[in-house]
């Protein structure tokens, strides 16, 4: 290592090599498809926006967020803490403060600009879209630079970092949106954005200099009285009724409030659209749809926290001795997490279910929804309409909970290589599946063949699910992770829910449209079984290494 710059670069490369390899692999796939599958330089007609979003926007955004976390050292500390998140161990290096601030910012800006240019030239963009050349790279570099500067700043109050950073990034985004609305040219966009990077560097340098000498502002005394009042309330709490309850409380405190908070932040902005577009049924519909899919969508972002068993700020996914030595079975520890996820789901949905009717009424958009209700009742009758509505809400609530817990069998294994490989597999699957789905969607013959084959595919999937469930049940039994009675009760409950869903589908869905056996297959595939059951196996594997 010949210089501090090379050493800092080496650390980023070494520590995040698998993530960087995954990004490079994704880019390689994009480039290969572009060069070999499609004619060079040809765009593609995405008939549906979701296909384009899944193929390009989602991976691009995910990689951008990943780079934000990597180059701001955001993965290695407590985001809500008052202290700077810049690694303290680096303060004692014989490197100038300018170097400590500058090199990570340069590497981050270079990586994020490269990400944009690679996506710009390798991705499949919809025909007719004029994709800008440089300013998105400068915007991304500016957002990263400010994220770094504000992450490395010390704050007088806990949690202030999150508020300040989010607000400031929203302000920058708002300025860009206004400029785009005004049809600003590329040079104008560059003139607006370019000054942000040096400004952020100055803030970062000042912040690191203060953090390096241990200077952390403190406003906590001003809130001491309030804290004393909350302490009095806290002391009145009764003991937990059981160890399972105590563990569920710990899990709730660890991740339970994240999803309700995220949904709570987004909900007012989404519902505000009802007040603006109350006379446009299409936008009212899209707004309501957006509101209703917000909890499951945000659940995907909270899920990694739900699955984490290690200490916050540490790289290892292994379970901490503090949790591993609780005198509870592995199944009970997993059950506590599932229970806390259920509380979190309900806490996220209650404000949605309360706020939507109020917003519809106050905005004046309620008549549109009442009209939809009338049409649905005319089409299927009152009981079926009520059942469809309730089934829809129940499915969304269940989907939210499922989002939180469905990957526990991976994350609770505590093996980094499994977690990273599964993320890579998911990304690879999306990369191949979306163009394939687009290709099938564009061909009537392929669609017809798929429709004919769907029952067979569903039957194969049911066979695989049943076999996997039997294997998991045998492992749970052999490993003494679940008793015979619990396994039996679980199997009975799953069957009852599946039969209930099947009965409901039989009643709602017209027989002529979908055969009964297909509905049975859908019900079997729709009720979670294997991945949830495998979570105790994964956790025991992590706990008893």
């Amino acid at each position, binding site marked *: 290592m010949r210089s501090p710059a090379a050493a800092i670069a080496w650390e980023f490369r070494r520590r995040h090599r698998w993530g960087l390899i995954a990004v490079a692999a994704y880019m390689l796939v994009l480039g290969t498809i572009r060069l070999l599958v499609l004619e060079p330089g040809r765009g593609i007609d995405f008939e549906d926006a979701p296909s384009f979003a899944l193929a390009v926007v989602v991976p691009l955004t995910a990689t951008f967020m990943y780079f934000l976390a990597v180059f701001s050292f955001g993965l290695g500390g407590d985001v809500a803490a008052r202290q700077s998140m810049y690694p303290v161990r680096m303060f004692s290096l014989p490197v100038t403060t300018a170097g400590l601030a500058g090199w990570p910012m340069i590497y981050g800006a270079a990586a994020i600009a490269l990400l944009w240019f690679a996506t710009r030239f390798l991705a499949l963009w919809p025909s007719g879209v004029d994709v800008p050349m440089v300013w998105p790279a400068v915007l991304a570099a500016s957002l990263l630079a400010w994220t770094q500067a504000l992450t490395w700043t010390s704050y007088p109050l806990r949690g202030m970092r999150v508020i300040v950073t989010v607000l400031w990034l929203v302000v920058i985004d708002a300025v860009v949106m206004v400029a785009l609305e005004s049809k600003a040219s590329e040079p104008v966009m560059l003139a607006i954005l370019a000054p942000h990077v040096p400004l952020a560097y100055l803030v970062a340098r000042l912040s690191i200099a203060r953090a390096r000498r241990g200077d952390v502002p403190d406003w906590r005394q001003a809130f001491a009285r309030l804290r004393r009042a909350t302490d009095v309330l806290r002391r009145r709490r009764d003991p*937990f009724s059981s160890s399972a309850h105590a563990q569920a409380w710990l899990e709730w405190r660890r991740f339970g409030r994240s999803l309700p908070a995220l949904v709570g932040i987004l909900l007012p902005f989404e519902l505000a659209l009802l007040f603006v577009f109350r006379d446009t049924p299409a936008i009212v519909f899209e707004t309501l749809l957006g509101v209703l899919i917000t909890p499951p969508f945000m659940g995907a972002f909270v899920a990694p926290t739900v699955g984490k068993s290690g200490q916050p700020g540490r790289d290892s996914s292994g379970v901490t*001795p503090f949790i591993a*030595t609780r005198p509870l079975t592995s199944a009970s520890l997993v059950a506590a997490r599932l229970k806390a996820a259920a509380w979190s789901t309900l806490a996220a949905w209650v404000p949605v279910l309360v706020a939507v009717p109020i917003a519809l009424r106050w905005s004046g958009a309620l008549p549109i929804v009442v009209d939809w209700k009338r049409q649905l009742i005319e089409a299927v009758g009152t009981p079926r309409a009520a059942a469809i509505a309730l089934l829809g809400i129940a499915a969304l609530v269940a989907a939210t909970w499922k989002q939180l817990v469905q990957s526990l069998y991976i994350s609770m294994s505590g093996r980094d290589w499994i977690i990273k490989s599964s993320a890579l597999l998911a990304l690879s699957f999306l990369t191949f599946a979306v163009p394939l789905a687009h290709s099938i969607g564009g061909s009537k013959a392929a669609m017809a063949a798929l429709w004919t084959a769907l029952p067979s595919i569903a039957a194969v999937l049911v066979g695989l699910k049943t076999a996997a469930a039997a294997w998991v049940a045998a492992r749970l039994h052999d490993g003494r992770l679940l008793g015979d009675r619990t396994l039996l009760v679980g199997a009975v409950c799953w069957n009852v829910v599946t039969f209930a869903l099947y009965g409901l589908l039989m009643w709602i869905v017209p027989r002529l449209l979908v055969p009964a056996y297909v509905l049975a297959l859908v019900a079997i595939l729709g009720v979670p079984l294997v991945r949830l059951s495998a979570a105790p196996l994964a956790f025991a594997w992590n706990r008893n290494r």
Partner: protein
Amino acid sequence: MTEKVVEVSDLTRRFGARTALASVSLSMSRGAVYGLVGANGAGKTTLIKHLLGLLRAESGSVRVFGRDPVADPVAVLSRIGYLSEENDLPGWMRVDELIRYSRAFYPAWDDAYANDLLQEFALDPTARIQNLSKGQKARAGLISALAYRPELLVLDEPSSGLDPIVRRDILGAVIRTIADEGRTVLFSSHLLEEVEQVADHVTMIHQGRIALSAPLDEIKESYRRLSVRFAESRPQPPAVAGVLRWDGGGREWTAVHRGGSGELQAALAGWGARIEAECVPSLDEIFVAHVGVAAASAPDS
């Protein structure tokens, strides 16, 4: 017959190519303090993790209170108090929340004892654990490990990096636990003078193998540190049966010897040497004599 609290037989554990434990056998009886000593990376924590069921025995067997801690974690862990060297208490918890949370797991939790310890350690119940110093965190962990008066108290390097006052608190906790009749303590450390203060039985572990395991009194009786004066200057000390380690140079040498000094005297006479002084070596000296390196200065592995 005394009931065995811990029985480990022929336990072997490998991490990749490295053997962390090699055919380790150990048994612990009720009502004694066991000191587990060894250099960093010797296998102390690996052995303790097997006792807690955090590691599965690759070969050999582990029984705690007669049960397999992996197969029956609830029955085993509910009787063990554990203080980890990692200090991994959840940072977001307040001290009173830690106590409220911990008491839910142990029916025998003693509120009065917990309050006594809280006052004795001068911990603010409303303080967040992440805002506590390292010593305060160790004290908070000690309360959650002691307040239900566990039958087996396992302290894994509890004094590591702590100031003398906190170390005194930890040793006090060990002594208090001993005072509770029938309690057993396993105390792992590379600070041998601490172990010497409280342990009844010492197990030395080196590179995954048990180098020595015996009651402390027996160890003290068996070993001698001898100052030896040779008639002529010697570049190397002679090979004498029972001498584990030689230090010194020229005519003046110091030997750590296991066995009777009479036998050594006879052997040395043949080399033209005589014993100038004789004393009981410290546990540290015995350890160094056995493993050939200083306990606290050996490299991590």
